């Protein structure tokens, strides 16, 4: 099984998000970056599948040169190859991202052989367009299901499971196939020291496609309006218990 995972470098803000002066991006000067949680699970799943079925894991990201950091994190988790699709520091629209990824995957496949399974995060943690995985998969002629929290590899087929409002749905698809996965698929490992050392030394390949823009153009970002309010402090420590019970009683809960 040769598995490809597409990941994105995303900022990890804390209690508040600051915006850049022109309002078109997040002010990331004081922020750390991470792989999106959905995609981290995708990397973990790929590494587990390859450990069980053999083959290799390739991790691909479209983004700025700094996304090398996230590729190396994935390598330290056990992925075999890292590919950076360098698309500059400005965020691309989802059609352009999909085109860049599709071109890169076609190039990789033309040099060796098609991937058996392609994994995406269900949506990126920052832009959250909910479509890049679908666009890439459809361009490559792969079946794809989203929201996946369970993957079982069969003979020439894959079984994919997802949660829905009132239960669980199971899908079957022929391989090669794609899936857009969600956090909860597994509990990703912390990279070992050996893994980190290996990742540091691994070569990362760079591809530079030039996709044309799609039809969604960001004008500006803003923080949603917050309702003005005062927090009522009920008290300190165990002494506040009476006031807490009063609130519960007021709400008819006790």
């Amino acid at each position, binding site marked *: 099984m040769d598995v490809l995972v597409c990941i994105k470098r995303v900022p990890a803000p804390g209690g508040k998000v600051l915006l850049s002066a022109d309002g078109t991006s997040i002010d990331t000067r004081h922020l750390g970056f991470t792989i999106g949680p959905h995609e981290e699970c995708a990397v973990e799943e790929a590494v587990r599948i390859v450990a069980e079925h053999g083959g290799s894991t390739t991790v691909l990201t479209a983004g700025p040169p700094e996304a090398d950091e996230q590729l190396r994190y994935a390598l330290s988790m056990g992925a075999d190859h890292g590919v950076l699709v360098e698309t500059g520091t400005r965020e691309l629209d989802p059609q352009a991202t999909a085109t860049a990824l599709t071109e890169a995957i076609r190039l990789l496949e033309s040099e060796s052989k098609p991937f058996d399974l392609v994994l995406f995060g269900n949506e990126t943690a920052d832009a959250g367009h909910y479509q890049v995985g679908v666009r890439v998969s459809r361009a490559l002629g792969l079946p794809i299901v989203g929201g996946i929290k369970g993957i079982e590899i069969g003979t020439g087929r894959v079984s994919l499971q997802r949660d829905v409002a009132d239960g669980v749905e*199971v899908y079957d698809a022929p391989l090669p196939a794609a899936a857009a996965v969600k956090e909860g698929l597994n509990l990703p490992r912390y990279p070992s020291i050996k893994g980190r050392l290996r990742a540091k030394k691994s070569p990362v390949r760079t591809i530079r496609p030039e996709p044309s823009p799609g039809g969604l153009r960001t004008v500006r970002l*803003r923080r949603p309006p917050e309702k003005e309010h005062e927090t009522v402090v009920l*008290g300190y420590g165990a002494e506040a218990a009476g006031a*807490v019970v009063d609130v519960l009683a007021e709400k008819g809960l006790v």
Partner: protein
Amino acid sequence: MLLVIVEEDAGGVSAASLEAVTCARHLAEGAGLDLHAAAFGAHGDLAAGLSKYGVSTLHLVTSESTREYSPELWGTALAELVEHTGATGVLAASTDRGTEILANAAASTEQPFASNCVAIEPGDPWTLTRQRGGGILLEDAELSGRVKLASLVAGSVEISEATATHEVDVLEFAPTPQATMPHSAIVDRTSRGSGVSLASARVVVSGGRGVGSAEGFAPLEELAELLGGAVGCSRVATNNGWRSHSDQVGLTGTKIGAELYIACGISGATQHWVGCMGAKTILAINTDPEAPLVARADYAVIGDVQEVLGAVLERLRARRAAA
């Protein structure tokens, strides 16, 4: 013509779909266009439910290959319906399926798709506002294309009826069978048991790093039980293996809509906040009076989780015994 995908709920059109219909009518009126609806595998009488909302035609997608849900086949069928009817815009509610079908149709037609919109205004391009990061930020954007596709977040538009009621023409649409296209198929569906679900629980008692351990959740479980609620947690609790991911509240977990959210030892990072901001009342228990969630909560207790919950449970038990 604009097309709106409608989903069924209890034999009628779902509330989220009626929001999409209302928004689509606003766009259609603004551009002097007709408004059509489309439904997959519908069983109820959707036409009757749409007559008051300005929809002139309902397309029922009916074929053997689209009888059961398949994201690729439904998306391709929608793309074909769009070409067949000459629709210049397609809207749907941002449900799992609505989003997935639009993404597939957008991929098939190579047209742009704006997901999770909260407002869309007519014109060319459409000017819209969409949620990023589950609502951490709003994005004002322009959408231009031969066919524009957009999904609408539930609760962002007030459902309204059209000025006149119309009889809705119902047309059956049989998409071309896709014999060679590789696609997925749904093979099994299981319903959840009756227990309280996190997303719909009236009360959620949630814990984060400040709870300290898996065992530290025992008082949270007891309180949730007493209040008829569910237990939630932060991503730190999930990543530490204290709770299963199905309990996680937030951007990459579950969005809750509880009457009361009790956040114990949770700082209130933006990614957590977007999961609990839909709660009507928030009570934060935290040692740090400066924690972001304390600032955003309606009520706060400053103190140690175990100490505060221990005292609260003692009182509740005593109340029970006295009753």
